[in-house]
């Protein structure tokens, strides 16, 4: 069996009561005060050849991503836990033990930085475009060509204006929320195919927030929603977006 690594925390850390990516029960490897949450997965499904094949299958990618996230999200939140990227796999438990020993300094610093903060996502979309017949320029029966062009120009100007306003609003919201967070990251706007949304995405950002600041953060998100743009908060997430160490 191979050892699939989900997350790293400090002892004591109980494995969650959730099946892993291979439907296996998760367990904990302890070394040097660190606790690694792992699962034993079958080489037939998780060695290099199997993964190279499976990761071409988008349904399989979805299954793996959801199972990985579900397990990490089920870990207790009373101590720092650093989530590990999808599909980090070792030949055996010794590989994980070696990692915990060799990278102890960086891992310790990362866990100190994360503390018990949680990650909250914030997504903002522009309000739906007003109906075309709401344009202010009236049709002129005498000069249909001119009035058509004027309507076109008015519509284009209104679009540009709306876009500029949206960008400005997104910057403002992001600055406000960043002040209530330990760290903030902007993510790429989501593609309509994956998000299922067609309005323009003004903001896709994620914030690392201390527990004691969560109420203020939530209130600030609600306040931003009063501006007319649609704003959605997601989470709490395990701090995936802030669990970074440099890979040597």
């Amino acid at each position, binding site marked *: 069996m*191979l050892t699939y*690594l989900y997350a790293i925390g400090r002892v004591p850390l109980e494995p969650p009561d959730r099946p892993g990516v291979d439907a296996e029960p998760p367990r904990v490897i302890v070394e040097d005060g660190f606790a690694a949450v792992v699962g034993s997965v079958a080489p037939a499904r998780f060695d290099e050849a199997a993964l190279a094949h499976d990761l071409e299958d988008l349904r399989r990618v979805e299954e793996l*991503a959801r199972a990985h996230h579900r397990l990490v999200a089920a870990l207790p939140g009373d101590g720092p836990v650093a989530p590990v990227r999808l599909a*980090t796999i070792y030949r055996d438990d010794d590989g994980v033990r070696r990692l915990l020993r060799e990278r102890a300094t960086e891992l310790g610093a990362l866990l100190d930085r994360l503390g018990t903060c949680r990650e909250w996502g914030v997504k903002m979309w522009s309000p739906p475009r007003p109906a075309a017949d709401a344009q202010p320029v009236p049709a002129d029966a005498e000069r249909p060509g001119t009035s058509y062009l004027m309507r076109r120009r008015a519509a284009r100007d209104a679009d540009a204006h709306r876009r500029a306003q949206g960008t400005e609003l997104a910057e403002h919201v992001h600055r406000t929320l960043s002040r209530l967070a330990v760290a903030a990251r902007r993510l790429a706007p989501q593609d309509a*195919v*994956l998000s299922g949304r067609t309005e323009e995405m003004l903001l896709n950002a994620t914030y690392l927030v201390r527990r004691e600041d969560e109420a203020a953060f939530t209130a600030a998100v609600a306040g931003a929603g009063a501006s007319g743009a649609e704003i959605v908060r997601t989470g709490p997430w395990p701090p995936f977006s802030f669990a*970074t160490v440099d890979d040597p």
Partner: protein
Amino acid sequence: MTTSGGIPVPARSRAPDHRQESTNLADILERVLDKGIVIAGDIRVNLLDIELLTIKIRLLVASVDKAREMGIDWWEHDPTLSSGQRDVLEENRRLRERVGALEAERTREQP
């Protein structure tokens, strides 16, 4: 056809009792696929980035006629694709080229 929570596929290819998970797939992928501690494991994997993944999802449902037959019409709600079938074909051609280029690049990177 489902687009809200998962990878778009014709509804009938899902098991009848499949429950749509509430957490948005895009939100999950941009975290577990793109973030989290990056440690080189013993098993070498090549995770697609989200952009490439999205392109592949588009290609998956790229055959317009076939998709219509199956009742898939998501592109009609996609602003980048909504101005007619010709644009869809053009978009597909562009995406295919892009995937080809990215795959060639990937092959060059790992001899």
